[in-house]
């Protein structure tokens, strides 16, 4: 069996196992047959010997009586020399009859000395001519008649062999035949597997349609089904990637066109310094916008590549919100906007802090970007029913219901906006939220009248509650 793991081929392994099992069964059958036959044979032949001996004893007893009646009608030993072998097995059978210690009768193939030392019962002896005999000795009732009946053990062996050969030869011949049939059967059974591998080997990397194989064995069908499901998933992923690339390239065209045109305007402005400076300013702004778009695209593509394996640690959402608010405050101040943070509770969640920062930044940036100068944006972190709730309210114009439904579509930008967003922020927010099973809701802000975005995180079991948590959370940053 230790050989089996070394056999790479399933077919060879199955075949080896099959043949080995058959050989073992064959061997066991041989041993059992041998033991059984031998036992039966011994019983039968010993029985015959005993019966023959009994006959001879009986005959001798009758002769004795006759001799008593007729007085020496026959001299001893006269039959023996003339006795013809009656059967080809006859030389293998021998007998001796002693009467009162005198040999009165014997077969031709045995000497005058008693065959066995045992006087009653069976014994296997070796005679002076090296032949082995099975001898049965018995005595007459009065003890004056001693009979030995013997049979060559050889003949028993011959019978045993004949039986064994008869039984086992067909088995021996059938072993290679069975091997061949087994090989063919296994080969036949594995045909579907080979066909599958041929199909897969021939496949182009782009081919992601389902593998269709007629009449699959039940064992291989799940493999093909799983394979097809995998192809389907890969296909979806690829087409989403392709769409994404196309959309991304498409979206990059507009800022690049703007940069080019503004640069040409600056070149063509000639002496008009105001026009040139305006155009150059917008050229730089266009570059920033393209850079922002590329940044967002990269974030999104990284997110999509590693959504399942995003690392998570215990993060203090309030501390993160504070950091993001601090980062964005200068921009808000420049636009005369007010950015407020309300986070009196720590709000510990099991997330990756970089990703969560990206989410916070996108939400806050969106609120600031699409609110007019002087508007107010309020970030708040609260805990509610064991969940952590982040809310971003703004006093901006809000969104019509139609647009609310379309938020999160890649590159969707609300109509009539003059702001140069990438159209990707929402995709990113939704993607990150999905990674951590957080729920994102958009509605009209009851607080400030503009848009209100809520992100609700499920709370994970290990949430330590203590007074020093904000500081504890900061250590993550």
């Amino acid at each position, binding site marked *: 069996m230790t050989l089996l793991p070394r056999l790479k081929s399933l077919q060879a392994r199955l075949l080896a196992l099959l043949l080995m099992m058959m050989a073992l069964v064959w061997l066991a059958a041989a041993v059992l047959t041998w033991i059984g036959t031998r036992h039966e044979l011994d019983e039968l032949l010993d029985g015959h010997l005993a019966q023959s001996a009994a006959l001879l004893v009986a005959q001798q007893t009758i002769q004795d009586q006759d001799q008593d009646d007729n007085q020496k009608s026959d001299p001893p030993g006269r039959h023996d020399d003339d006795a013809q072998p009656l059967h080809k097995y006859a030389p293998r059978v021998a007998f001796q009859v002693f009467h009162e210690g005198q040999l009165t009768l014997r077969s031709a193939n045995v000497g005058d000395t008693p065959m066995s030392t045992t006087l009653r019962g069976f014994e296997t002896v070796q005679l002076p001519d090296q032949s082995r005999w099975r001898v049965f000795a018995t005595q007459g009732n009065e003890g004056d008649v001693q009979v030995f009946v013997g049979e060559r053990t050889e003949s028993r062996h011959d019978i045993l062999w004949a039986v064994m050969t008869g039984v086992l030869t067909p088995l021996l011949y059938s072993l290679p035949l069975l091997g061949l049939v087994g090989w063919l059967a296994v080969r036949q059974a594995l045909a579907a597997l080979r066909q599958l591998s041929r199909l897969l080997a021939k496949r182009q990397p782009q081919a992601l349609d389902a593998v269709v194989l007629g009449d699959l064995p039940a064992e291989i069908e799940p493999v093909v089904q799983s394979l097809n499901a995998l192809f389907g998933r890969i296909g979806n992923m690829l087409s989403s990637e392709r769409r994404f690339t196309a959309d991304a390239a*498409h979206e990059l*065209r507009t800022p*690049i066109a703007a*940069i080019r045109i*503004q640069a040409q*305007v600056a070149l*063509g402005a000639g002496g008009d310094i105001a026009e040139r400076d305006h155009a150059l300013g917008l050229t730089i*702004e266009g570059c920033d916008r393209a850079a922002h778009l590329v940044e967002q695209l990269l974030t999104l593509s990284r997110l999509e590549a590693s959504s399942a394996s995003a690392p998570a640690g215990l993060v203090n959402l309030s501390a993160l919100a504070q950091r993001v608010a601090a980062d964005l405050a200068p921009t808000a101040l420049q636009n005369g906007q007010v950015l407020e943070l309300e986070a009196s509770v720590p709000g510990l969640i099991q997330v990756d802090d970089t990703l969560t920062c990206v989410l916070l930044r996108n939400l806050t940036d969106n609120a600031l970007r699409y609110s007019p100068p002087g508007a107010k944006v309020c970030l708040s972190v609260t805990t509610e029913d064991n969940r952590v709730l982040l809310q971003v309210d703004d006093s901006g114009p809000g969104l019509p219901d139609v647009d609310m439904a379309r938020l999160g579509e890649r590159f969707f930008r609300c109509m009539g*906006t003059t702001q140069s967003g990438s159209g990707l922020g929402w995709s990113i927010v939704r993607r990150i939220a999905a990674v951590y099973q957080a729920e994102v809701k958009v509605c009209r802000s009851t607080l400030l009248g503009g848009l209100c975005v809520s992100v609700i995180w499920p709370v994970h079991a290990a949430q330590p509650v203590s007074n020093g948590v904000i500081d504890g959370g900061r250590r993550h940053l």
Partner: protein
Amino acid sequence: MRLLLAEDDPMLGDGLRAGLRQQGFQVDWVRDGLAAEREIASGDYQAAVLDLGLPQKDGLEVLQALRRKKITTPVLVLTARDTVPDRIKGLDLGADDYVIKPVDLFELGARLRSLVRRAHGLVQDVLNCGNVQMNLAARQVLMDGQAVSLSTREFDLLHALMLNMGRVLSREQLEQQLYSWGYEVESNAIEVHIHHLRKKLRADLIQTLRGVGYMLLRPKDPT
């Protein structure tokens, strides 16, 4: 030459307007589809640059609506949608040209001039009226082979008249073609420009039809 620019991207729109103005076009800029449709339908523009991804009404829908209303103003579609089916759709819906972003400003100008020219059944970038020759690309006017220096307005006025040679154009029509939005037009501005043109070129070049308008006489066939 007065153009309507329909583009929702603020930076690109600003750049296109400035760049086209540098090339002598009068440019009005709208940022959504409904405004674009309304303005082009007004007939005040000799051509329009139309972005497809416009808010409120998609550029293609605008185009379709205009062509259904039999408005033939040449429209150049300027878009990021670059697939062949997109282009075919745009052209079939009535676009006169289809340009993919990003575009060179001068190429855009040339394409627009070409559109206007074709709309007036011309094949060359040069207009002729007797001994006066106008080169549109160079924005140059020659009389008897000599270059005549004209201001932007004078050039545009002469251009409008030359394009409509033999047809009377009212003062209002000329004003609409000359001035983009945001200009205070003096009531006698056209008359002043006509006066200058007559002085710089030929006195009898431009005919005044009192109370009706102005026209350029088609030169008599030399044969």
